């Protein structure tokens, strides 16, 4: 019998195009690996195309490359001209680059437009067993389908455009097992924040993570994508969940997925994509879902996180001197006092969106909480930004837009929006958000802005109360 392999090793092995003879990849020596799908957006691709042009090189596989406008797109009326000149020039550059190279582009007027990591799965471009890259660290999202997906820099974007391959060293493997059932009010977002809180933001560095356990298996694809999306915030470049019936059911009938007999053949192939019994991981982490409370970040990186019933920590409670200094800095930046109960933190704005939490399950969870209620008077703005126009259409079909608007939320068009604030959706200086996005770094949502990362359910509840509340105190239906 052959040596048992992890899911990661299976995908890696099936994508090696070239290895230097005598130098096994395990020794840190790189191999040339094939890239099945390459996703690009306006922000990190223009320099890659200019690089190609300067060397007289061509896009090798435009048919395997997909482009979308997401980072800087306005989420209000798109029939108006783009007033941000720099953003407009980037959109024009992407359009020209795609036209000249034959790459399919979902521009901001396409009905399939959306955040790159939302539309890949939604259109069925993302499929199990593939290698997928994009010039964006949240490419890890696609790992929810049992793909090896990770973010790359612009030079690597250029490399993939030219060769459809990447020079990569094999990563170590990390198994993250989340046992048991999720309590009501605890979502995929809380699971991944709790994991990052446990391993730290560099805990997974050098590794590819594979998630398992009942609490992961029982998640919908939307929930699994949330978990894999934030894998990078724990330092691992890629996170994956082995495909199963949930995965196959999600994919069937999507435009880029094979149909009929070809679909059955694909499913048979995809069923091989799991870690073999006896395969060894380099590191293992275990959590029990019953110990996970709804999570809220209090600091300036996603590892600075705690349960909603806890208090803002005291810098002195950390053993490591660097952690103490970082916590002190974070509390000053966040305008928080050590010892403050999390539920006493007042909120200025609420953002429900981003590649982490803007899928239909997220919007349903938030909508079912706010139905018949209204955002607190102290809230200056509450935004709902669907991850794609497809999700927007679906939500409108279900009447979710009306629920949000009646509750005092703004209902917007699809894009990255206030997660990164590259368009007009910016969190003003010293204002505090409850945000369903992925990063609470200094200045992330706007200069001197203060971000608290939470689940869509927690964000919705904070919008209604004007401060954080424990959603478990309310009668909430189980959500992803």
């Amino acid at each position, binding site marked *: 019998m052959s040596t048992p392999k992890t899911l990661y090793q299976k995908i890696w092995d099936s994508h090696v195009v070239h290895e230097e003879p005598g130098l096994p990849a395990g020794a840190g020596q790189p191999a*040339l690996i094939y890239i*099945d799908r390459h996703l690009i957006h306006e922000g990190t691709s223009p320099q890659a195309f200019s690089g190609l042009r300067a060397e007289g090189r061509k896009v090798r596989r435009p048919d395997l490359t997909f482009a979308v406008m997401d980072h800087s797109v306005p989420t209000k009326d798109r029939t108006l001209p783009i007033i941000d000149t720099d953003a407009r020039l980037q959109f024009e550059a992407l359009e020209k680059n795609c036209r000249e190279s034959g790459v399919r582009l979902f521009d901001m007027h396409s009905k399939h437009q959306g955040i790159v990591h939302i539309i890949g799965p939604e259109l069925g471009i993302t499929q199990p067993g593939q290698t997928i890259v994009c010039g964006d660290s949240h490419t890890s999202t696609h790992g929810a389908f049992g793909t090896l997906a990770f973010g790359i820099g612009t030079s690597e974007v250029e490399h993939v455009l030219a060769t459809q*391959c990447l020079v990569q060293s094999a990563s170590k493997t990390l198994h993250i097992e989340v046992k048991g059932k999720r309590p009501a009010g605890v979502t995929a977002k809380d699971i991944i924040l709790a994991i990052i809180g446990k391993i730290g933001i*560099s805990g997974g*560095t050098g590794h590819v993570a594979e998630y398992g356990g009942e609490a992961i298996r029982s998640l919908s694809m939307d929930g699994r994508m949330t978990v894999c999306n934030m894998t990078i915030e724990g330092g691992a470049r890629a996170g994956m969940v082995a495909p199963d019936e949930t995965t196959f059911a999600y994919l069937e009938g999507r435009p*880029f997925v094979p149909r009929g007999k070809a679909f059955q053949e694909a499913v048979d192939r995809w069923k091989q994509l799991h870690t073999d019994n006896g395969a060894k991981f380099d590191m293992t982490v275990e959590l029990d879902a019953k110990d996970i409370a709804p999570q809220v970040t209090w600091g300036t990186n996603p590892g600075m996180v705690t349960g909603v019933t806890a208090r803002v920590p005291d810098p002195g409670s950390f053993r490591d001197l660097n952690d103490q200094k970082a916590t002190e800095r974070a509390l000053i930046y966040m305008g928080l006092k050590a010892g403050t109960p999390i539920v006493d933190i007042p909120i200025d704005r609420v953002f429900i969106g981003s590649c982490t939490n803007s899928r239909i399950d997220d919007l349903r969870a938030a909508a079912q909480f706010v139905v018949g209620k209204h955002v607190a008077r102290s809230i200056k703005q509450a935004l709902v930004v669907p991850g794609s126009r497809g999700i927007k259409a679906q939500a409108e079909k279900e009447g979710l837009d009306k629920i949000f608007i009646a509750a005092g939320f703004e209902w917007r068009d699809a894009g990255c929006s206030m997660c990164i604030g590259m368009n007009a959706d910016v969190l003003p200086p010293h204002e505090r958000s409850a945000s369903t996005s992925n990063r609470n*770094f200094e200045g*992330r949502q706007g200069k001197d802005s203060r971000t608290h990362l939470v689940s869509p359910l927690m964000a919705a509840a904070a919008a209604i109360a004007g401060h954080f509340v424990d959603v478990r105190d309310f009668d909430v239906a189980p959500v992803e």
Partner: protein
Amino acid sequence: MQPFSTHTGKVIPLDRVNVDTDQMVPKQFLKALTREGFGRILFYDWRYLPGEKPNPQFVLNFPRYQGASVLLTRANFGCGSSREHAPWGVKDYGFRVILAPSYADIFYNNCFKNGILPAELSEEQIEELFQRTEKEEGYSLTVDLPSQTVTDNHGLKYNFDIVPSRKEVLLKGLDDIGTSLQHEKEISAYEKANAATATMFDPVDIKNYANGR
């Protein structure tokens, strides 16, 4: 790419853990179309007060560290966003070497595409270098890639590890793409052998597709 062999330069201490790439080049500068000019942007929100006045509290603006080309910092440097604008800024500012106990994966990779050497030393060694930099104005280090050593004028000598292939990329200033294209036959053979995954399935009726689930 500019090759890297040996570099001697003044050290600047950036005493923070987990410096993320959002801090190196904030989002408002990601709308560029070229790789140039990011040195002025590097650590923008820490470095400048309103009106782009230098913030005297930030180490990059201390007179004693002007002209530094070796960036000394703490663990998990370069975490977060994959933006290569961060190493473009590091390089354009004038840094050739970064010294830290650890780096985030994507940033680390990106350094090698830009002729920057991100050398890894132990926490204790980094702490010692912080102290020496603090003590001696104009403290400088020589970082030698062929011998994988960091040395100062007072007899300090540290060795660092680096994967041989990465070392070669820097030493020769290799064009990765050119190297990979030499394997064109193997790439084509792979595509033929793996037609099921390396072929794009034509989308079914995408014009009329509305996400229904």
